[in-house]
């Protein structure tokens, strides 16, 4: 659709601008403020320059947390995206069963995040949880509060459980937009199942898949509540992801300068990676439109 140039449209955007500025810009400036100051209590602040940032870049704790966070996001993306596409390809195309699948698949997406944590915390317990009990009975040495590998496996399976449906729903929406004529043409050409996927379904899904990847990256990168409820960041620091570490620092130890520098670095990393995804996404949009 051709849009008209109209500078007065700013008036329509103004309420959003004021509201978001109040709830985003003011807090963000507070963070920036803290990141360059030092405090000796009683609200006395001193200009500290960039020492917090220097300290941050030299702190092993931050690099470890960032490493764990990147590993976590990479693993869940590597599992959820192919699995989501696979599920979407197997979903009924229309009718009663399609509705049933849509409703049941959406269910995990609407559960409060701490309840998701609670569900898995209970489900994976060796004494009273179905999963933990079964694993224990078949002889797997499984204990997510003590064992590094079990803790990671639990939070990864939990995230796959929680969010794979999102990827599947988006991929499904992409598949639904393919006209039937494409499939008929493929049939006439005797295209194999793989060829249909590679040359018809996948290109059509690409746009929505980018959105799915963008969303899953952002949300997994700021995940806090679910792993916190299940493992509390343990055993040791094994599952202390960035958000968990930050909350510990800011609200637990009240290290304002450190936490603020940490926050800014954290936000910039998300922003940079998301910007790349976003650019790819809008370029795909344009290509589809043109």
């Amino acid at each position, binding site marked *: 659709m051709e*849009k008209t140039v109209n500078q007065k449209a700013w008036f329509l955007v103004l309420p959003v601008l004021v*509201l978001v500025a109040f709830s985003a810009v003011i807090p963000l400036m507070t963070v920036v403020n803290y990141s360059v100051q030092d405090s000796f209590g009683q609200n006395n602040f001193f200009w500290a320059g960039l020492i917090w940032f220097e300290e941050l870049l030299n702190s092993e704790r931050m690099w470890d947390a960032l490493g764990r966070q990147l590993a976590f996001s990479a693993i869940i993306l590597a599992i959820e995206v192919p699995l989501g596409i696979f599920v979407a390809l197997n979903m009924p195309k229309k009718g009663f069963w399609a509705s049933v699948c849509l409703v049941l698949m959406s269910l995990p997406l609407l559960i409060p995040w*701490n309840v998701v944590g609670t569900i898995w915390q209970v489900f994976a317990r060796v004494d009273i949880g179905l999963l933990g009990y079964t694993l224990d009975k078949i002889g797997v040495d499984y204990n997510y509060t003590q064992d590094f590998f079990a803790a990671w496996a639990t939070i990864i399976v939990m995230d796959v459980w929680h969010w794979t449906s999102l990827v599947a729903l988006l991929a499904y929406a992409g598949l639904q937009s393919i006209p039937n004529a494409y499939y008929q043409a493929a049939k006439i050409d005797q295209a194999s199942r793989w060829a249909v996927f590679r040359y018809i379904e996948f290109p059509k899904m690409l746009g929505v898949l980018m959105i799915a990847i963008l969303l899953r990256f952002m949300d997994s990168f700021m995940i806090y509540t679910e792993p916190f409820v299940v493992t509390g960041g343990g055993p040791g620091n094994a599952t202390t992801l960035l958000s968990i570490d930050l909350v510990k620092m800011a609200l637990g130890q009240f290290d304002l300068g450190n936490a603020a520098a940490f926050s800014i670095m954290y936000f910039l990393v998300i922003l940079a990676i998301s910007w790349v995804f976003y650019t790819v996404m809008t370029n795909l*949009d344009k290509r589809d439109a043109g």
Partner: protein
Amino acid sequence: MADMTAPRTAAARSLSLPRVNGSAIVMVVYLLFLLLPIYWLLNMSLKTNTEILGTFSLWPRDLTLANYATILSDPSWYMGYVNSLIYVVINTTISITVALPAAYAFSRYTFLGDKHLFFWLLTNRMAPPAVFALPFFQLYSSVGLFDTHIAVALAHCLFNVPLAVWILEGFMRGVPKEIDETAYIDGYSFPRFFVKIFMPLIASGIGVAAFFCFMFSWVELLLSRTLTSVDAKPIAATMTRTVGASGVDWGVLAAAGVLTIIPGALVIYFVRNYIAKGFALGRV
């Protein structure tokens, strides 16, 4: 080539039946994986604590509703649900109200800095709540809004307003511009056109945007927990009460969990066809 065609289609035909069944098996296995943990929570919520800890059973042997009774008869429990509902409704109302005109502007006009503004809105959806927890706490404490419903509602606007703008813009793009122009020629003023003609046209979009604002505000815990202590404490934070000196009250914890799933489960049927569009920020 022609001689190869016949056997191949025959093979494809004989393969087509198992393939359909294969899809069904995949879906059944996947849905089972999704529902099993939820079933387990439900199962636990209907048992007594002695049964939960004593015997391992796949279904409740002596069914009890005592856990639900505990929650629904104690104000310090059920007020958690009321508090959550209050701030969620306030948030949804604010988000949709401010997002409607903005989404209209983005869908119809180009203006100075519109693309940057649009991306800046999205960056707020990317902002980790953990980054904002402390500044929010200080901001709302200093203006005397700490532990009020409006504080949580405003804090959740951080991610819900951008979401609402994106979803509504997606729906508004589908409405042809000729409708606007015809209305203006007929002498409608902008506010009257917007309320009388335009809003009914995108009613489903408004419903979907409201649903998503409701949902994301309902599932969020970090900010709502940080900004409240007693009077506006959300149910999600109340749930930690079940951990007491004598151990965890598993039955009540499970019942509280089941009750938080219900609001989402009730409305999901109505938005099932739009849920992908909502999650895609209106881009599908």
